[in-house]
């Protein structure tokens, strides 16, 4: 088991190295970084000086090693636009994004699983058909459109919810949370729905399909032949087996929720990492773009690792194969 975790952790480091290469390459292929930092009338001598001070004259492998070692300590350089350390900017923005992504995922998981179970068990009911139809729309409507529709309805017409921003936040050290104030919670509602809707429909459809599949298996038929109650069969045997693959997908989805947050944050002017990234793209602020790539990848890889470990905890068969292979 330990060997398995170590092996997977090593793989994760490998993935991060690869991402590091890509984000390092961004610096080299997105034009001369010095041009981004200086005014047009800066003299050639001054430019050379800056270049030297940034280490841009060193051999590429050395530059990469330096970049990676810095990145591993969360030193991402200085933002071209803000003239502030990127790591500080990210740290400031991260709580907003993580809170939004977590809320969206919890929402998506909770409703997705409940509705998925319902539509699997009541396969022919009217509500199931409605859910199936609506979920198709949920999957095919672009996120920004849903966000705009929500804003139009709840902010413009009804005036119930704020159309942008995070509301009031409370600070705990460097972490800021909107979960403790009314305005913060209100501000969280629409972005969470917008961000979570796609995942929710996905999870709902997955749970439904998976559960229908499980209900057809021999062990469910045998459970019925043993006279177990419908409740024990549906919510014990069938649900447990259904949720095993759902864990993986849901875990991986958390990563893509963070990535998708870029759009939602833009629509709602949510002060998170995604919005920071969009602004960085507009201003060719390479250090922020590169750092964003690294941080999001790190989150992805970490979640992946956790999901893998969780998976072996839940499924005894995997635990056995993992144990044997180790």
């Amino acid at each position, binding site marked *: 088991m330990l060997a398995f975790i170590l092996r997977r952790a090593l793989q994760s480091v490998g993935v991060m190295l690869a991402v590091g290469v890509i984000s390092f390459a961004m610096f080299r292929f997105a034009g001369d970084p010095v041009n981004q930092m200086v005014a047009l009338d800066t003299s050639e001598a001054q430019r050379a000086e800056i270049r030297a001070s940034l280490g841009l004259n060193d051999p590429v492998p050395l530059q990469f090693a330096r970049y990676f070692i810095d990145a591993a300590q969360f030193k991402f350089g200085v933002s071209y636009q803000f003239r502030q350390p990127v790591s500080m900017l990210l740290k400031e923005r991260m709580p907003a994004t993580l809170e939004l992504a977590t809320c969206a995922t919890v929402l998506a998981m909770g409703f997705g699983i409940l509705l998925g179970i319902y539509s699997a068990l009541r396969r022919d009911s009217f509500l199931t058909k409605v859910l199936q139809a609506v979920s198709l729309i949920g999957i095919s409507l672009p996120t920004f459109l849903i966000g705009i529709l929500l804003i139009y309805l709840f902010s413009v017409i009804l005036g119930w919810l704020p159309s942008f921003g995070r509301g009031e936040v409370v600070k705990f050290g460097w972490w800021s949370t909107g979960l403790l104030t009314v305005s913060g919670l209100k501000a969280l509602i629409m972005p969470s729905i917008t961000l979570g809707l796609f995942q929710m429909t996905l999870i709902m459809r997955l749970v439904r399909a998976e559960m229908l599949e499980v209900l057809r*298996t*021999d*062990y469910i*038929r*045998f*459970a*019925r*032949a*043993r*006279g*177990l*109650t*419908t409740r*024990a069969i549906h919510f*014990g*045997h069938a649900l*447990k*087996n259904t949720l*095993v693959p759902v864990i993986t997908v849901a875990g991986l989805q958390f990563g893509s929720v963070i990535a998708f947050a870029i759009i939602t944050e833009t629509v709602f002017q949510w002060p998170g990492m995604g919005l920071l990234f969009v602004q960085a793209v507009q201003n060719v602020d390479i250090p922020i773009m590169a750092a964003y790539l690294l941080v999001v990848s790190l989150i992805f890889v970490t979640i992946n690792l956790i999901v893998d470990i969780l998976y072996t905890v*839940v*499924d*005894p*068969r995997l635990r*056995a194969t993992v144990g044997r292979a180790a």
Partner: protein
Amino acid sequence: MVEPVLSVRNLRVEFANRRGVLVAIDGVSFDIAKGEVLGVVGESGAGKSVTGLAAIGLIDAPGRIAGGEIYLSGLRIDNLSPDAMRRIRGKRIGMIFQDPLTSLNPLYRIGDQLVETIRTHLNLNETAARKRAIDLLAEVGIPAPEKRIDAYPHEFSGGMRQRVVIALAICAEPELIIADEPTTALDVSVQAQIIALIKRLGRDHGTAVMLVTHDMGVIAETSDRVAVMYSGRIAEIGPVRDVVQNPLHPYARGLMGAIPTLAGDASKRLVQIPGSMPRLSAIPTGCAFNPRCDFAFERCRIERPEPIRVGAQAVACHLYDRAATESAA
């Protein structure tokens, strides 16, 4: 006469599909007495599994029991409410399916599956149920049951898993066990052991057993009586010795062509009769076997044969209807 444990009267099972209704079982009747093993043989699709599932109340939509009656020790069970039938399943009727590898829930320890089943049917606390589970595992021949009880299904071999499945099926001492090809998916070397186990359990507890199998050798070794099914009907039924040594129905005669023993060689599968069984949607009128039958005559294409008693056997074939045979001659 003592009441049979299972009595199936004129059973009819239908499956509805887009194009209409298919009749999978049509007019099947048989009894199984206490302590008796009824072997059921027949080609694939003959209706063996559907008959067993009907008896335990597990015919799912689009299928339904469309006619006839099923009695369990005198109690009519084919029209019980779903919950009443559920209480009978696993308690008074145990069922064993073909594939032990897929019959057990992979995510639960076998002990938990046993305890859950025991406590569903018997009024026992956790400790007593666990004790009973260990005893059951010992009874079906699992070594070191007090240790193995906490293992997961994948930690057992196929044969051992089928023993666990059997323990689950008998955990409330059912009056009837329905075993649907319990050894087909197993290694040849363990097949005989599992069959011997089922036979022993049936004998020890006086359980009636319905044993579905493709294996004539198994039937010859274990069954008291045998029913030969063809196209959703019983072609012939009777004491195993009579049916095996002196089959009356032309189809049964084809089947009994060569009967090796359990210890015998590879040819113990049913012998091949030229042609194949008709699909449910294309069952010929008259005797369903008539296109393949060497003895078929006029009447066979028009009138469906009903079971006729010949000694201890009952055979559904016009050849044995004396009056008809004479008039045809």
